[in-house]
């Protein structure tokens, strides 16, 4: 057995957008063990729930993550609505669906861009982010915020989208779809990308389930599990099939994200077709009492919000389980046995969002 050495990877590393620390135990160039540690960006947002009114905490919940902020707000609002047994108007549910699919589009474009950057394909990174800008423009035009939308509230949504704007959004997406096809073709067919991704960081089907992988990491290993199939918001009325790849390597996870973008566009089209008229919010009175679990599908995987109220304006407990946190054990399993040079690619293939994981 050759001598083992430990190489620290992170929390500051050129390929990492956010701080996570991995101690890589190496034998020659091969990683034999990984010790992950987090805790560099903890902000204590869950504790804030005790000091903010339940209607104001939506703003805090949205700021848990800068990428999937809408989905966090949606999960929190669903939790409070479930606790207080509020019937949300149908139109608000469809608008929530449209916005959450928009945030999935922009998150996947961001991730694919960063992924290309990690591979050293700078040009592709710029192109992915150029397309993402169109999505962000639509988000800002409909909600008022590019990244933090602030459009979800307990009892509905803050803003309505006019039918002309909805049609405009769909025609914009039709245009964008052609460019996205070109972009994803590069990810899926380019030989240099394939040589970097295929067979790297394999997560076998059984292990993916046992380690509790979620989202594209799980679906890249052959499991057809998607929290949108639970039918929250308006997903129960829309037709879609989760994208599944069976190889379980970095290429499969990249392919799941690339193909999921087109599913999202299709879902937005269906939602715009089926959206009913009517009000977008109901008046909320009283205070939440009891406890509630909500599960929603973030771009990175399944997100769980647990809320507990005691009949006052302030909730007593909020617990968030984010997809990145559950994807760290599968990441450790993937990294064992890989080469040191492949570590950045594998770390990025789970789409880590550390700000989200630590709150």
């Amino acid at each position, binding site marked *: 057995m050759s001598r083992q050495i430990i190489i620290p990877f992170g929390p500051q590393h050129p390929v990492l957008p956010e701080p996570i620390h991995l101690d890589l135990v190496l034998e020659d160039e091969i990683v034999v063990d990984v010790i992950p540690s987090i805790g560099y960006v903890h902000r204590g947002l869950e504790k804030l729930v005790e000091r*903010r*009114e339940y209607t*104001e*905490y939506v*703003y*805090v919940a949205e*700021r848990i993550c800068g990428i999937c902020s809408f989905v966090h707000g949606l999960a929190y609002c669903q939790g409070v609505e479930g606790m207080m047994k509020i019937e949300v108007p149908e139109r608000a549910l469809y608008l929530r669906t449209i916005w959450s699919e928009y945030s999935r589009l922009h998150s996947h474009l961001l991730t694919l861009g960063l992924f290309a950057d990690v591979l050293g394909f700078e040009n592709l990174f*710029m*192109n992915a982010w*150029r397309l993402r*800008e169109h999505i962000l*423009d639509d988000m*800002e*035009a*409909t*909600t*008022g*915020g590019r990244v*933090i939308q*602030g459009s979800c509230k307990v009892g509905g949504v*803050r*803003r309505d989208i006019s039918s002309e704007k909805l049609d405009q959004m769909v025609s914009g997406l039709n245009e964008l779809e052609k460019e996205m096809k*070109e972009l994803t*073709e*590069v990810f899926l*067919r*380019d030989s240099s990308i394939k040589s970097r991704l295929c067979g790297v960081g394999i997560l076998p089907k059984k292990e993916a389930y046992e380690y509790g992988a979620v989202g594209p990491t799980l679906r890249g290993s052959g499991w057809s599990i998607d929290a949108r199939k639970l039918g929250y918001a308006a997903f129960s009325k829309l037709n879609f099939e989760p994208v599944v790849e069976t190889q379980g390597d970095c290429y499969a996870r990249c392919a799941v994200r690339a193909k999921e973008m087109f599913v999202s566009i299709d879902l937005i089209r269906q939602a715009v077709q089926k959206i009913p008229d009517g009000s977008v919010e109901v008046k909320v009175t009283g205070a939440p009492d009891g406890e509630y679990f909500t599960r929603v599908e973030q771009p990175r995987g399944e997100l769980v919000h647990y809320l507990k109220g005691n009949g006052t304006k302030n909730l007593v407990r909020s617990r968030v389980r984010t997809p990145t946190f559950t994807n760290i054990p599968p990441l450790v399993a993937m990294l064992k046995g890989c080469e040191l040079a492949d570590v950045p690619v594998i770390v990025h293939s789970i789409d880590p969002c550390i700000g989200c994981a630590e709150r």
Partner: protein
Amino acid sequence: MGIFEMVGTVARSVFRKPATLMYPVKTAKITPLSRGHVVIDVSRCISCRICQKKCPSQAIWVEPKEKTWQINRLRCNVCNSCVETCPVKCLTMDTHYIPPVTVRPGAELFHITYVKPPKPENTAEKKD
């Protein structure tokens, strides 16, 4: 990526205008709904302090006795909560972002000029 697709992408990028803006020399893209910064109409504020209570980041201080309304622009996270809850609608959301700063400024101070109108006298009693 075939060589022809690559040439196509390059050609389009050469003739297309740049995808980025020279911010802050050129102003950022703005839509009618954009949340830029909070503006107060001091002549209508009744110092009710609802904005202060509803602010999730505690950026607003209202002193009813001294008739001042203060906002810390760097604490404010532009969530629109105060604008929505203001009972007299003296707060509005401007679409322009505040310019970037290099020195941390203190709170911005506004003097409230609203004067409570006197109660209309009961003229019916006088007639009697």
